[in-house]
């Protein structure tokens, strides 16, 4: 099992870096989704099913949706101006 935890930890570092390095906010949202999914898998591997359940919902559904809606609202404000 130790290789699984190690691989997921490295994957987490990679996913977090991708979130930061994707400069276009619209693309960053997808990176955030992937980051949430990887974090949830890591939490499962770390024997934390409770935390993984909340992370998989918050990280892949709720937060990305809020980001998308905020970007759409900003684009509409810009068009209205």
């Amino acid at each position, binding site marked *: 099992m130790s290789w699984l935890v190690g691989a997921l930890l490295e994957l987490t570092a990679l996913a977090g870096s991708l979130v930061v*390095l994707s400069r276009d906010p619209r693309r960053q949202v997808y990176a955030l989704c992937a980051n949430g999914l990887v974090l949830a898998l890591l939490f499962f591997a770390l024997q934390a099913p409770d935390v993984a359940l909340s992370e998989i919902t918050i990280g892949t559904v709720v937060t990305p949706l*809020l980001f998308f809606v905020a970007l759409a609202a900003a684009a509409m404000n810009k068009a209205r101006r």
Partner: protein
Amino acid sequence: MSILAWCVAAWLFGIGVYGIVTSRHYVHLIGCLAVCQSATYVLLLGIGFRWHAGPPIFYDHPPGTPAVDPVVQALVLTDIVVSAAMTALLLAIALQVHKRRGTLDPQHLRPFRQEK
């Protein structure tokens, strides 16, 4: 292996701060802040983890079998939910900035400039 988890936590926090410093878009900046927060999740769960132990739920296996630390899990659990609400608050502030100033670039904002 024994220090990999701490290195990952430090790396996530560091790269999140780097993203915040160099960000040119408030929504991107809030995403970087989420990466910083995930560093704390990795650190806390790493502290409580124990090799060859099960989850701290004694439904299938009886109490007394080795289990990981439930206290840090409870901390992280509530933190994730509250941090989502805080992200929403930050996004709302960013939207207000965009409505008033017409930009989401931190470098185009000056603290005491007259509103256009």
